[in-house]
């Protein structure tokens, strides 16, 4: 077949809402876009274990400890499926990790913010996982098969996490005055960083156009952000908390809330490595990997010895 015929087959699949599978022909920039997106997503899961793991040893009840441990483990599991999905595109785990460790690959900037109090664990589950689900629900129908299938399971677990986060917020908001203040403080600090998770405004989003065309993405950043605000404000009201936005107002004409844009200058700084925890997060990942080098070497040496014994027999 000529290249144009391959392209026709590929375009035909997209048009018919069919999945593209690892052995199918695909354009180079489609492959590159997916590797970038899936690995970025995988790295986010792994780096995301750090701010949440930060509170495992300090979880304030035995039940909270079990729930948080299981949650952080789930995030690691998501990382694993996603690395595996990325590997089907012809890149190795070592290469992917190397990109993370050297700072070449990005991960979700939200994890460069610190979890300062227990309420932050509630806010991360409720807001951050809530925002992630908005982005991810549409990925269950994304055009690349292994990614779409990984997302089905991930979405189920994430919605569970969101409920767990909301449960923490509920305990705090209906608890003592100190607890409620802790919840409000967490909302104040996480509201705008969460809004940033949907990415820059559509007019300034460099990767969106192709992503929409390839069905890697199905709604724009601004559409998703609006949806998130509309969904979250009633939850904030239920908790008796206040959204830290003086301009927040229901707009009957658009059947949605008007809201203030997050500080996009801050967003750019955090993405460029200047957020409160960028250096710590990357250092923690590097340390874990470097400290683990002898473990991985020992496992390989042992496997090699066993193979030699087996082959000699």
């Amino acid at each position, binding site marked *: 077949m000529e290249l144009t015929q391959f392209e026709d087959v590929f375009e035909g699949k997209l048009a018919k809402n069919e999945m593209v599978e690892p052995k199918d022909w695909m354009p180079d920039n489609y492959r590159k876009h997916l590797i970038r997106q899936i690995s970025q997503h995988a790295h986010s899961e792994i780096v995301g274990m750090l701010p949440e793991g930060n509170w495992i040893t300090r979880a304030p009840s035995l039940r909270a400890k079990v729930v948080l*441990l299981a949650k952080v483990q789930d995030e690691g599991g998501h990382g694993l499926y996603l690395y595996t999905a990325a590997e089907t595109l012809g890149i190795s785990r070592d290469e992917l990790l190397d990109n993370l460790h050297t700072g070449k690959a990005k991960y979700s900037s939200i994890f460069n913010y610190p979890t300062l109090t227990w309420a932050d664990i509630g806010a991360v589950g409720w807001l951050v996982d809530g925002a992630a689900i908005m982005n991810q629900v549409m990925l269950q129908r994304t055009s690349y098969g292994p990614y779409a299938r990984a997302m089905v399971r991930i979405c189920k677990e994430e919605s569970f996490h969101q409920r767990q986060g909301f449960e923490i917020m509920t305990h705090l908001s209906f608890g003592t005055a100190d607890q409620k203040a802790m919840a409000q403080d967490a909302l104040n600090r996480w509201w705008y960083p969460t809004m940033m998770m949907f990415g820059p405004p559509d007019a300034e989003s460099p990767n969106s156009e192709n992503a929409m065309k390839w069905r890697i993405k199905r709604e724009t950043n601004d559409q998703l952000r609006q949806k998130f605000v509309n969904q979250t404000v009633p939850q904030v009201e239920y908790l008796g908390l206040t959204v830290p936005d003086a301009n927040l107002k229901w707009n009957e004409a658009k059947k949605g809330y008007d809201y203030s844009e997050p500080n996009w200058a801050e967003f750019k700084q955090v993405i460029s490595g200047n957020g409160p925890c960028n250096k710590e997060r990357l250092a923690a990942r590097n340390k874990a990997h470097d400290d683990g080098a002898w473990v991985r070497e020992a496992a390989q040496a042992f496997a090699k010895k066993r193979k030699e014994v087996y082959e000699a027999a």
Partner: protein
Amino acid sequence: MTTQEALFNYTLRLGDTNLILAQRLSEWTGHGPFLEEDLALTNIALDITGAAKSLLEYASTIENKGRSADDLAYFRNDRQFFNAQITEQPNGDYAKTIARQAIMDCFDYYFFTELAKSKDETLAGIAQKSIKEVTYHLRHTSSWLERFGDGTEESHNKTQTAINQLWQYTGELFEMTEVDEILLKEGIAVDLNLVKAKWENHMADLLAKCTLIQPENVFMQTGSRKGIHTEHLAFILAEMQALPRMYPDAKW
């Protein structure tokens, strides 16, 4: 000492041992040597935290003074904890964590197998559930011990050092006190002499298979049965208990 008092202390000892071990293991979450192992160790931490929770809930029921499992975990001081000292030892490198865990998994395997026969139905039930989990844990940690022992020179040396450091805390696991004697007569407690013999055989085989040397003539540390610990426990509790103690009226 009444049977009830003995049972309370015995259950606390088991609950605390699991709680503190899980607390140490969970320090690794997100920092493991590679992703699959991070998940596996977290899974072990999760199982052990679950066992601790069941045991402390039972201790709370036995005591029957209105202290919940959380109260027992978060509002006792180090001198009122009865976890074995080995569980509070710092994680160190991965060899030390695996060595500590293999020692405990092997102990738990034989201990819970005996406890499953207890006349106390709750303890027997918790033990039956734990055996299934511990069987997997022991397989996992034994396989790592073997990889480390017979892997590279570096992994071998790190693991031998860890075993040498930790061995002094193994004697305590088998100490029997008045509590054990009272409950043994009732068919509730486990005869630790029996567990000791099985544990020693198993460890001797395992270490030999791993090309590691079992330390000999080690002077054994003691104290946890009386609530006396190493310097590490108070730090673990300071971290673990900070939040509930800062807000004693709060529910989480």
